Protein backbone atom coordinates (compact mmCIF):
# COMPACT_ATOMS: atom_id res chain seq x y z
CA UNK A 1 0.00 0.00 0.00
CA UNK A 2 2.81 2.33 1.06
CA UNK A 3 4.52 1.36 -2.16
CA UNK A 4 1.55 2.33 -4.29
CA UNK A 5 1.16 5.66 -2.52
CA UNK A 6 4.87 6.35 -3.06
CA UNK A 7 4.66 5.68 -6.77
CA UNK A 8 1.29 7.04 -7.77
CA UNK A 9 0.16 9.50 -5.12
CA UNK A 10 3.37 11.03 -3.83
CA UNK A 11 2.41 14.28 -2.09
CA UNK A 12 5.86 15.86 -2.32
CA UNK A 13 5.86 15.39 -6.05
CA UNK A 14 2.32 16.69 -6.31
CA UNK A 15 3.34 19.99 -4.75
CA UNK A 16 6.48 20.19 -6.87
CA UNK A 17 4.82 19.42 -10.17
CA UNK A 18 1.63 21.37 -9.57
CA UNK A 19 2.70 24.72 -11.14
CA UNK A 20 4.02 23.01 -14.26
CA UNK A 21 0.88 20.94 -14.64
CA UNK A 22 -1.36 23.91 -14.12
CA UNK A 23 0.37 25.73 -16.98
CA UNK A 24 -0.04 22.61 -19.11
CA UNK A 25 -3.72 22.44 -18.19
CA UNK A 26 -4.14 26.06 -19.29
CA UNK A 27 -2.54 25.22 -22.63
CA UNK A 28 -4.88 22.22 -23.00
CA UNK A 29 -7.89 24.47 -22.41
CA UNK A 30 -6.63 26.97 -25.01
CA UNK A 31 -6.07 24.12 -27.44
CA UNK A 32 -9.59 22.79 -26.93
CA UNK A 33 -11.06 26.27 -27.30
CA UNK A 34 -9.24 26.57 -30.62
CA UNK A 35 -9.72 23.17 -32.22
CA UNK A 36 -13.33 22.39 -31.29
CA UNK A 37 -14.87 25.44 -33.04
CA UNK A 38 -12.48 25.04 -35.96
CA UNK A 39 -13.50 21.38 -36.36
CA UNK A 40 -17.21 22.22 -36.04
CA UNK A 41 -17.12 24.96 -38.67
CA UNK A 42 -15.00 22.82 -40.96
CA UNK A 43 -17.40 19.91 -40.51
CA UNK A 44 -20.44 22.05 -41.22
CA UNK A 45 -18.79 23.28 -44.40
CA UNK A 46 -18.00 19.73 -45.45
CA UNK A 47 -21.58 18.60 -44.74
CA UNK A 48 -23.10 21.47 -46.71
CA UNK A 49 -20.76 20.80 -49.64
CA UNK A 50 -21.91 17.19 -49.44
CA UNK A 51 -25.45 18.40 -50.23
CA UNK A 52 -24.25 20.23 -53.31
CA UNK A 53 -26.14 20.11 -56.58
CA UNK A 54 -22.98 19.05 -58.37
CA UNK A 55 -22.21 15.40 -58.29
CA UNK A 56 -18.45 16.08 -58.53
CA UNK A 57 -18.53 18.20 -55.37
CA UNK A 58 -20.49 15.53 -53.50
CA UNK A 59 -17.98 12.88 -54.52
CA UNK A 60 -15.04 15.04 -53.54
CA UNK A 61 -16.45 15.53 -50.06
CA UNK A 62 -16.97 11.78 -49.64
CA UNK A 63 -13.37 11.16 -50.70
CA UNK A 64 -12.15 13.92 -48.38
CA UNK A 65 -14.10 12.51 -45.43
CA UNK A 66 -13.08 8.88 -45.95
CA UNK A 67 -9.47 9.83 -46.61
CA UNK A 68 -9.07 11.68 -43.34
CA UNK A 69 -11.11 9.19 -41.37
CA UNK A 70 -8.75 6.46 -42.53
CA UNK A 71 -5.71 8.23 -41.07
CA UNK A 72 -5.15 7.81 -37.37
CA UNK A 73 -5.00 11.42 -36.10
CA UNK A 74 -1.52 10.91 -34.68
CA UNK A 75 -0.27 9.82 -38.10
CA UNK A 76 -1.74 12.95 -39.64
CA UNK A 77 -0.15 15.12 -36.97
CA UNK A 78 3.30 13.57 -37.34
CA UNK A 79 3.09 13.72 -41.10
CA UNK A 80 2.38 17.44 -40.92
CA UNK A 81 4.87 18.15 -38.17
CA UNK A 82 7.77 15.98 -39.34
CA UNK A 83 6.98 15.63 -43.04
CA UNK A 84 6.15 19.14 -44.23
CA UNK A 85 9.58 20.62 -43.33
CA UNK A 86 10.95 18.41 -46.10
CA UNK A 87 8.79 20.38 -48.51
CA UNK A 88 10.25 23.57 -47.14
CA UNK A 89 7.19 24.29 -45.01
CA UNK A 90 8.21 24.72 -41.39
CA UNK A 91 5.20 25.14 -39.15
CA UNK A 92 5.29 25.84 -35.42
CA UNK A 93 3.93 22.97 -33.31
CA UNK A 94 0.70 24.75 -32.49
CA UNK A 95 -0.09 25.44 -36.14
CA UNK A 96 0.69 21.82 -37.05
CA UNK A 97 -1.68 20.68 -34.34
CA UNK A 98 -4.46 23.01 -35.47
CA UNK A 99 -4.04 21.99 -39.11
CA UNK A 100 -4.11 18.26 -38.23
CA UNK A 101 -7.22 18.80 -36.12
CA UNK A 102 -8.94 20.80 -38.83
CA UNK A 103 -8.42 17.99 -41.36
CA UNK A 104 -9.28 15.15 -38.96
CA UNK A 105 -12.19 16.56 -37.02
CA UNK A 106 -13.84 18.34 -39.94
CA UNK A 107 -14.15 14.90 -41.53
CA UNK A 108 -15.78 13.45 -38.40
CA UNK A 109 -17.99 16.46 -37.66
CA UNK A 110 -18.86 16.49 -41.35
CA UNK A 111 -20.25 12.95 -41.12
CA UNK A 112 -22.28 13.84 -38.04
CA UNK A 113 -23.78 16.95 -39.64
CA UNK A 114 -24.47 15.04 -42.85
CA UNK A 115 -26.43 12.39 -40.94
CA UNK A 116 -28.32 15.21 -39.21
CA UNK A 117 -29.19 17.01 -42.43
CA UNK A 118 -30.34 13.76 -44.04
CA UNK A 119 -32.51 12.98 -41.03
CA UNK A 120 -34.66 16.04 -41.73
CA UNK A 121 -37.35 15.09 -44.23
CA UNK A 122 -37.38 16.83 -47.61
CA UNK A 123 -40.88 18.02 -46.76
CA UNK A 124 -39.37 20.50 -44.32
CA UNK A 125 -37.22 22.15 -46.99
CA UNK A 126 -40.12 22.11 -49.47
CA UNK A 127 -42.42 23.76 -46.96
CA UNK A 128 -39.82 26.44 -46.24
CA UNK A 129 -39.14 27.11 -49.91
CA UNK A 130 -42.88 27.29 -50.61
CA UNK A 131 -43.14 30.20 -48.19
CA UNK A 132 -40.52 32.08 -50.16
CA UNK A 133 -37.41 31.42 -48.05
CA UNK A 134 -34.18 31.26 -50.00
CA UNK A 135 -32.03 28.13 -50.07
CA UNK A 136 -29.65 29.65 -47.58
CA UNK A 137 -32.45 30.77 -45.26
CA UNK A 138 -34.08 27.36 -45.49
CA UNK A 139 -30.86 25.68 -44.44
CA UNK A 140 -30.14 28.13 -41.63
CA UNK A 141 -33.57 28.51 -40.10
CA UNK A 142 -35.36 25.26 -40.86
CA UNK A 143 -33.03 22.39 -41.70
CA UNK A 144 -29.98 22.93 -39.48
CA UNK A 145 -31.78 23.51 -36.18
CA UNK A 146 -33.63 20.20 -36.60
CA UNK A 147 -30.53 18.45 -37.91
CA UNK A 148 -28.46 19.49 -34.92
CA UNK A 149 -31.13 18.40 -32.48
CA UNK A 150 -31.42 15.02 -34.17
CA UNK A 151 -27.71 14.26 -33.91
CA UNK A 152 -26.99 15.97 -30.60
CA UNK A 153 -25.63 12.79 -28.94
CA UNK A 154 -23.20 12.18 -31.81
CA UNK A 155 -22.17 15.82 -31.72
CA UNK A 156 -21.40 15.68 -28.01
CA UNK A 157 -19.64 12.34 -28.40
CA UNK A 158 -17.47 13.69 -31.21
CA UNK A 159 -16.61 16.78 -29.20
CA UNK A 160 -15.52 14.55 -26.31
CA UNK A 161 -13.23 12.67 -28.71
CA UNK A 162 -11.72 15.89 -30.05
CA UNK A 163 -11.15 17.14 -26.51
CA UNK A 164 -9.29 13.95 -25.64
CA UNK A 165 -7.30 14.09 -28.87
CA UNK A 166 -5.62 17.31 -27.77
CA UNK A 167 -3.38 15.05 -25.65
CA UNK A 168 -1.70 14.00 -28.92
CA UNK A 169 -0.10 17.42 -29.12
CA UNK A 170 2.30 16.17 -26.41
CA UNK A 171 3.95 13.99 -29.06
CA UNK A 172 5.06 17.06 -31.03
CA UNK A 173 6.38 18.76 -27.89
CA UNK A 174 3.54 21.22 -27.45
CA UNK A 175 3.58 21.94 -23.69
CA UNK A 176 -0.01 20.98 -22.92
CA UNK A 177 -1.16 18.92 -19.91
CA UNK A 178 0.12 15.49 -20.89
CA UNK A 179 3.43 16.85 -22.15
CA UNK A 180 3.99 18.73 -18.89
CA UNK A 181 3.06 15.66 -16.87
CA UNK A 182 5.46 13.48 -18.84
CA UNK A 183 8.21 16.06 -18.39
CA UNK A 184 7.64 16.04 -14.65
CA UNK A 185 7.63 12.23 -14.68
CA UNK A 186 10.96 11.99 -16.47
CA UNK A 187 12.52 14.44 -14.04
CA UNK A 188 11.16 12.85 -10.86
CA UNK A 189 11.19 9.20 -12.03
CA UNK A 190 7.74 8.87 -10.54
CA UNK A 191 4.31 8.29 -12.09
CA UNK A 192 2.51 10.71 -9.79
CA UNK A 193 2.46 13.59 -12.35
CA UNK A 194 0.70 11.36 -14.88
CA UNK A 195 -1.87 10.41 -12.26
CA UNK A 196 -2.37 14.13 -11.66
CA UNK A 197 -2.87 14.72 -15.37
CA UNK A 198 -5.39 11.86 -15.46
CA UNK A 199 -7.28 13.45 -12.57
CA UNK A 200 -7.36 16.83 -14.31
CA UNK A 201 -8.66 15.24 -17.53
CA UNK A 202 -11.32 13.44 -15.50
CA UNK A 203 -12.41 16.63 -13.75
CA UNK A 204 -12.73 18.35 -17.09
CA UNK A 205 -14.30 15.59 -19.17
CA UNK A 206 -16.34 13.45 -16.76
CA UNK A 207 -19.29 15.86 -16.83
CA UNK A 208 -19.32 15.57 -20.61
CA UNK A 209 -19.33 11.76 -20.37
CA UNK A 210 -22.28 11.85 -17.94
CA UNK A 211 -24.17 14.22 -20.21
CA UNK A 212 -23.48 11.90 -23.11
CA UNK A 213 -24.82 8.86 -21.28
CA UNK A 214 -28.03 10.67 -20.49
CA UNK A 215 -28.79 11.90 -23.98
CA UNK A 216 -27.61 8.69 -25.65
CA UNK A 217 -30.01 6.48 -23.73
CA UNK A 218 -32.82 8.82 -24.54
CA UNK A 219 -32.14 8.75 -28.24
CA UNK A 220 -31.59 5.09 -29.08
CA UNK A 221 -34.72 3.41 -30.33
CA UNK A 222 -36.54 6.65 -30.96
CA UNK A 223 -34.51 7.26 -34.05
Amino acid at each position, binding site marked *: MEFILQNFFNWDIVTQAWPLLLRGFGMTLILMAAVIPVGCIGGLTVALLGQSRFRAVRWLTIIYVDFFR*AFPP*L*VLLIFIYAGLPFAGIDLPAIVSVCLAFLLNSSAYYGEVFRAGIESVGTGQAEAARSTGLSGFQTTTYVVLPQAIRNVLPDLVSNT*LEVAKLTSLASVVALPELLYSADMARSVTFNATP*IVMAAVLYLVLLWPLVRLLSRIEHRS*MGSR
Partner: protein
Amino acid sequence: MNADITQWDRFLASFFDLAVMQKYLPDIVDGFLLTCHLAILIVISGLVLGLILAVIRAYEFWLTSWLIVVFADVMRALPPLVFILLLYFGLPGVGLNLSGYAATYVTLTLVLAAFSEEIFRAGILATPKGQWEAARSTGLGFGQSLAYVIMPQAIRMTVPPLTNRTIAIAKNTALGTVVGVGEILNQATTGQSFSGNASPLVLGALAYLILFIPVVVFGRWVETRFAWRRT
Protein backbone atom coordinates in the same frame (compact mmCIF):
# COMPACT_ATOMS: atom_id res chain seq x y z
CA MET B 1 10.94 27.90 -65.18
CA ASN B 2 14.14 26.20 -64.37
CA ALA B 3 13.76 26.99 -60.68
CA ASP B 4 10.32 25.36 -60.71
CA ILE B 5 11.71 22.16 -62.04
CA THR B 6 14.39 21.92 -59.38
CA GLN B 7 11.76 22.63 -56.72
CA TRP B 8 9.69 19.77 -58.07
CA ASP B 9 12.73 17.50 -58.17
CA ARG B 10 13.52 18.36 -54.61
CA PHE B 11 9.97 17.57 -53.59
CA LEU B 12 10.12 14.21 -55.33
CA ALA B 13 13.49 13.44 -53.80
CA SER B 14 12.24 14.23 -50.29
CA PHE B 15 8.92 12.41 -50.42
CA PHE B 16 9.22 9.76 -53.13
CA ASP B 17 12.83 8.63 -53.09
CA LEU B 18 12.51 5.15 -54.53
CA ALA B 19 15.82 3.92 -53.14
CA VAL B 20 14.85 4.99 -49.62
CA MET B 21 11.41 3.51 -50.03
CA GLN B 22 12.84 0.21 -51.16
CA LYS B 23 15.18 0.13 -48.18
CA TYR B 24 12.45 0.76 -45.60
CA LEU B 25 9.62 -1.17 -47.23
CA PRO B 26 10.35 -4.37 -45.26
CA ASP B 27 10.19 -2.41 -41.97
CA ILE B 28 6.89 -0.83 -42.95
CA VAL B 29 5.52 -4.26 -43.86
CA ASP B 30 6.57 -5.53 -40.43
CA GLY B 31 4.81 -2.56 -38.86
CA PHE B 32 1.75 -3.22 -40.99
CA LEU B 33 1.50 -6.81 -39.76
CA LEU B 34 1.99 -5.73 -36.15
CA THR B 35 -0.71 -3.06 -36.45
CA CYS B 36 -3.06 -5.66 -37.97
CA HIS B 37 -2.68 -8.25 -35.29
CA LEU B 38 -2.67 -5.75 -32.42
CA ALA B 39 -5.87 -4.20 -33.79
CA ILE B 40 -7.55 -7.58 -34.24
CA LEU B 41 -6.66 -8.68 -30.70
CA ILE B 42 -8.00 -5.40 -29.28
CA VAL B 43 -11.24 -5.59 -31.24
CA ILE B 44 -11.95 -9.17 -30.18
CA SER B 45 -11.12 -8.82 -26.49
CA GLY B 46 -12.65 -5.32 -26.20
CA LEU B 47 -16.00 -6.34 -27.70
CA VAL B 48 -16.19 -9.57 -25.69
CA LEU B 49 -15.40 -7.75 -22.45
CA GLY B 50 -17.91 -5.00 -23.29
CA LEU B 51 -20.62 -7.59 -23.96
CA ILE B 52 -19.89 -9.38 -20.68
CA LEU B 53 -20.07 -6.11 -18.75
CA ALA B 54 -23.34 -5.13 -20.43
CA VAL B 55 -24.87 -8.49 -19.53
CA ILE B 56 -23.70 -8.23 -15.91
CA ARG B 57 -25.12 -4.72 -15.75
CA ALA B 58 -28.48 -5.92 -17.10
CA TYR B 59 -28.96 -7.82 -13.84
CA GLU B 60 -29.17 -4.42 -12.12
CA PHE B 61 -27.33 -5.46 -9.00
CA TRP B 62 -26.37 -2.12 -7.47
CA LEU B 63 -22.73 -2.85 -6.61
CA THR B 64 -21.71 -4.36 -9.95
CA SER B 65 -23.71 -1.72 -11.85
CA TRP B 66 -22.01 1.05 -9.94
CA LEU B 67 -18.56 -0.40 -10.54
CA ILE B 68 -19.22 -0.80 -14.25
CA VAL B 69 -20.52 2.76 -14.57
CA VAL B 70 -17.41 4.14 -12.88
CA PHE B 71 -15.15 1.98 -15.06
CA ALA B 72 -16.94 2.99 -18.27
CA ASP B 73 -16.97 6.67 -17.35
CA VAL B 74 -13.28 6.80 -16.49
CA MET B 75 -12.19 4.93 -19.60
CA ARG B 76 -14.33 7.16 -21.77
CA ALA B 77 -13.21 10.40 -20.16
CA LEU B 78 -9.44 9.71 -20.13
CA PRO B 79 -7.41 10.25 -23.28
CA PRO B 80 -6.04 6.79 -24.11
CA LEU B 81 -2.50 8.12 -24.39
CA VAL B 82 -2.63 9.17 -20.72
CA PHE B 83 -3.61 5.66 -19.70
CA ILE B 84 -0.91 4.08 -21.87
CA LEU B 85 1.77 6.25 -20.26
CA LEU B 86 0.36 5.53 -16.83
CA LEU B 87 0.61 1.78 -17.36
CA TYR B 88 3.96 1.94 -19.12
CA PHE B 89 5.77 4.24 -16.71
CA GLY B 90 3.72 3.71 -13.57
CA LEU B 91 3.51 -0.05 -13.18
CA PRO B 92 7.27 -0.74 -13.10
CA GLY B 93 7.30 1.36 -9.92
CA VAL B 94 5.19 -1.32 -8.23
CA GLY B 95 7.22 -4.17 -9.67
CA LEU B 96 5.06 -4.86 -12.73
CA ASN B 97 6.91 -4.48 -16.00
CA LEU B 98 4.55 -4.00 -18.90
CA SER B 99 5.92 -3.82 -22.43
CA GLY B 100 4.77 -0.97 -24.65
CA TYR B 101 2.82 -3.53 -26.66
CA ALA B 102 1.04 -4.82 -23.55
CA ALA B 103 0.31 -1.30 -22.27
CA THR B 104 -1.25 -0.35 -25.61
CA TYR B 105 -3.19 -3.60 -25.84
CA VAL B 106 -4.58 -3.34 -22.30
CA THR B 107 -5.49 0.34 -22.64
CA LEU B 108 -7.29 0.09 -25.96
CA THR B 109 -9.07 -3.12 -24.93
CA LEU B 110 -10.42 -1.41 -21.82
CA VAL B 111 -11.42 1.69 -23.81
CA LEU B 112 -13.28 -0.39 -26.38
CA ALA B 113 -14.89 -2.44 -23.58
CA ALA B 114 -16.11 0.76 -21.92
CA PHE B 115 -17.60 2.21 -25.09
CA SER B 116 -19.10 -1.06 -26.30
CA GLU B 117 -20.61 -1.78 -22.88
CA GLU B 118 -22.46 1.54 -23.10
CA ILE B 119 -23.59 0.85 -26.65
CA PHE B 120 -24.78 -2.70 -25.84
CA ARG B 121 -26.59 -1.38 -22.80
CA ALA B 122 -28.34 1.29 -24.87
CA GLY B 123 -29.41 -1.50 -27.24
CA ILE B 124 -30.78 -3.60 -24.37
CA LEU B 125 -32.73 -0.64 -23.01
CA ALA B 126 -34.07 0.17 -26.46
CA THR B 127 -35.55 -3.30 -26.94
CA PRO B 128 -39.28 -2.94 -26.29
CA LYS B 129 -40.54 -3.99 -22.85
CA GLY B 130 -43.12 -6.25 -24.47
CA GLN B 131 -40.31 -8.53 -25.64
CA TRP B 132 -39.27 -9.15 -22.04
CA GLU B 133 -42.88 -9.73 -21.04
CA ALA B 134 -43.56 -12.15 -23.85
CA ALA B 135 -40.43 -14.13 -23.05
CA ARG B 136 -41.06 -14.19 -19.31
CA SER B 137 -44.72 -15.13 -19.81
CA THR B 138 -43.64 -18.37 -21.51
CA GLY B 139 -41.55 -19.31 -18.49
CA LEU B 140 -38.12 -18.24 -19.76
CA GLY B 141 -35.92 -17.03 -16.90
CA PHE B 142 -34.24 -13.63 -16.84
CA GLY B 143 -30.94 -14.93 -18.21
CA GLN B 144 -32.67 -17.00 -20.90
CA SER B 145 -34.82 -14.05 -22.00
CA LEU B 146 -31.70 -11.90 -22.19
CA ALA B 147 -29.74 -14.48 -24.14
CA TYR B 148 -32.32 -15.67 -26.67
CA VAL B 149 -34.75 -12.78 -27.04
CA ILE B 150 -33.22 -9.46 -25.99
CA MET B 151 -29.53 -9.67 -26.95
CA PRO B 152 -30.06 -10.82 -30.56
CA GLN B 153 -32.23 -7.73 -31.12
CA ALA B 154 -30.02 -5.40 -29.09
CA ILE B 155 -26.86 -6.44 -30.92
CA ARG B 156 -28.48 -5.90 -34.28
CA MET B 157 -29.47 -2.39 -33.28
CA THR B 158 -25.99 -1.60 -32.07
CA VAL B 159 -24.09 -2.69 -35.18
CA PRO B 160 -23.66 0.77 -36.78
CA PRO B 161 -22.46 2.71 -33.71
CA LEU B 162 -20.34 -0.23 -32.65
CA THR B 163 -18.67 -0.51 -36.05
CA ASN B 164 -17.68 3.14 -36.09
CA ARG B 165 -16.40 3.09 -32.54
CA THR B 166 -14.42 -0.07 -33.16
CA ILE B 167 -12.75 1.41 -36.24
CA ALA B 168 -11.82 4.57 -34.33
CA ILE B 169 -10.23 2.56 -31.53
CA ALA B 170 -8.40 0.22 -33.92
CA LYS B 171 -6.76 3.30 -35.44
CA ASN B 172 -5.51 4.29 -32.01
CA THR B 173 -2.96 1.47 -32.24
CA ALA B 174 -0.79 4.27 -33.69
CA LEU B 175 -0.49 5.60 -30.13
CA GLY B 176 1.73 2.60 -29.38
CA THR B 177 4.56 4.38 -31.16
CA VAL B 178 4.94 6.68 -28.15
CA VAL B 179 5.92 3.70 -25.98
CA GLY B 180 8.06 2.08 -28.65
CA VAL B 181 5.66 -0.39 -30.22
CA GLY B 182 7.01 -1.15 -33.68
CA GLU B 183 3.77 -0.59 -35.55
CA ILE B 184 3.45 1.32 -38.83
CA LEU B 185 3.89 4.85 -37.51
CA ASN B 186 6.87 3.82 -35.39
CA GLN B 187 8.62 2.16 -38.34
CA ALA B 188 7.86 5.15 -40.53
CA THR B 189 9.24 7.78 -38.12
CA THR B 190 12.28 5.64 -37.36
CA GLY B 191 12.94 5.28 -41.07
CA GLN B 192 12.47 8.98 -41.57
CA SER B 193 14.97 9.95 -38.89
CA PHE B 194 17.56 7.40 -40.03
CA SER B 195 17.34 8.33 -43.69
CA GLY B 196 16.76 12.04 -43.23
CA ASN B 197 14.08 11.71 -45.87
CA ALA B 198 10.30 11.87 -45.73
CA SER B 199 9.72 8.90 -48.03
CA PRO B 200 9.28 6.39 -45.18
CA LEU B 201 6.50 8.63 -43.83
CA VAL B 202 4.77 8.53 -47.19
CA LEU B 203 5.06 4.75 -47.18
CA GLY B 204 3.60 4.66 -43.68
CA ALA B 205 0.70 6.88 -44.73
CA LEU B 206 0.06 4.59 -47.69
CA ALA B 207 0.08 1.58 -45.37
CA TYR B 208 -2.60 3.20 -43.21
CA LEU B 209 -4.70 4.03 -46.24
CA ILE B 210 -4.43 0.47 -47.53
CA LEU B 211 -5.45 -0.85 -44.13
CA PHE B 212 -8.21 1.56 -43.16
CA ILE B 213 -9.83 2.85 -46.36
CA PRO B 214 -11.57 -0.54 -46.87
CA VAL B 215 -12.54 -0.56 -43.20
CA VAL B 216 -14.02 2.96 -43.38
CA VAL B 217 -15.91 2.11 -46.56
CA PHE B 218 -17.16 -1.07 -44.88
CA GLY B 219 -18.35 1.04 -41.94
CA ARG B 220 -20.25 3.29 -44.33
CA TRP B 221 -21.91 0.25 -45.89
CA VAL B 222 -22.84 -1.18 -42.48
CA GLU B 223 -24.44 2.12 -41.54
CA THR B 224 -26.84 2.07 -44.47
CA ARG B 225 -27.39 -1.68 -44.36
CA PHE B 226 -28.39 -1.72 -40.69
CA ALA B 227 -30.19 1.62 -40.74
CA TRP B 228 -32.90 1.63 -38.08
CA ARG B 229 -35.80 -0.28 -39.31
CA ARG B 230 -38.48 -1.65 -37.15
CA THR B 231 -41.42 -3.86 -37.89
